[in-house]
């Protein structure tokens, strides 16, 4: 329904999609690009790309959110490369990234995020480490492997185990 709406250039559907997913996508951008002004530009570009390139989305290759996430994340990563942003900008302090969320005046989401962090504590240390870096600190798997000298294959299997474990903890599926 959403996909058909976007493809038929229905702006009300884009309105809905934006309201529903902009928060998640913005947080992804923010985790890659720490500067809010640039992050907002990237988010805007991402939604325009989603709107303009919707015909290139193939539902047999994954869900709409995954596609939007990839579009957005790739734009964000491209931007860091073009600006030659230093990876040192990524903060290693988990508390700091939570503070960022606090600052956004989104109490409801903040509670959810804190709840998630509580759940992350139940993961084995090496799995939590991977999830924190990939989803909270905006690392790619390759960056994580390079920076911490972990084989890429290990990063992948740990990612898998962590998401699987989280599924159990959160009682999803």
């Amino acid at each position, binding site marked *: 329904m959403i996909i058909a709406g976007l493809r038929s250039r229905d702006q009300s559907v884009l309105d809905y999609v934006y309201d529903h997913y902009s928060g998640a996508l*913005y947080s992804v951008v923010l985790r890659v690009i720490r500067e809010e002004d640039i992050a907002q530009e990237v988010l805007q570009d991402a939604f*325009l790309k989603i709107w303009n390139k919707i015909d290139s989305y193939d539902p047999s290759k994954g869900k709409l959110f995954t596609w939007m996430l990839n579009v957005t994340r790739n734009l964000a990563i491209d931007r860091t490369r073009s600006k030659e942003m230093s990876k040192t900008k990524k903060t290693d302090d988990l508390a700091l990234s939570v503070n960022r969320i606090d600052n956004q005046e989104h109490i409801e989401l903040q509670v959810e995020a804190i709840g998630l962090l509580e759940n992350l504590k139940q993961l084995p240390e090496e799995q939590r480490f991977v999830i924190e870096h990939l989803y909270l600190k905006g690392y790619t798997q390759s960056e994580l492997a390079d920076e911490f000298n972990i084989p890429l294959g290990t990063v992948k299997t740990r990612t898998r185990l962590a998401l699987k474990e989280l599924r159990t903890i959160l009682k999803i599926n």
Partner: protein
Amino acid sequence: MNIQEYISSGVLEAYALGDLSAVERVEVEKNLIQYVELREELSKIEDMQETLLMSLAVMPPSSVKAKVMQAVQPQGKAVAMDTSLIRWKYAAAASVILALGLGYLAYDYRDKWIHSQVALNELITQSQQVAQDYNRVNLRLDKMENDLKVINDPSFTKVVMKGTPNAPQSLASVYWNDRTREVYLSIQNMRELSQENQYQLWAIIDGKPVDAGVFDGNVTGLVRMKDITSGAVTFAVTIEPRGGKSSPTLQTMQVAGNVSKS
């Protein structure tokens, strides 16, 4: 291919994250088409990832949405979004008001239309009534003109029939043309009868009563009766059962008069 081994490698999670190279992506997509287990597993991973990222959501400032929505406007102009958004809201409000206004007008016009339709029907009925009245008056006028012609016609003989002892107050006249055999009756004063009875006019010709037709007590003007043969000497009226009889009931005679010899 060992599906479980493939899944355990974490390649699907990397795919969902968007961390695979282009070549690796194509490979995964090819396998997804081929193996339903991979599609099912990917779907679970995607759901988990979405849940994770949704719970970490940070709302961007509303200006970003305004810019996005303006940029996708078909004839989007490079105007500051805030004013354009306000204008858009005014336009929406205006169109709602316009729609309401049009709705009211449509209702109002329909109401007026129905009213005019009713008024028109009334006028049509009235004019039909007037036409009927006119026709009725016209008929009466024709009849009066005709009556007047009969009364003034010297070839008609007027026979006054006076009340008998049965009805001393009654009075009626006959206008009779011996040549054309036409007979007209005119009531001056005769009481109304019940529904079962009628008056019957008789002409006495050669000593015998001849039926000249029946009439009711409430007729006005001249009433055309049956033609009779010539030679009538007397006219008389009796009360008979409705429709009349072949011979008069003499006991009920109301009026009678002799033809005066001229």
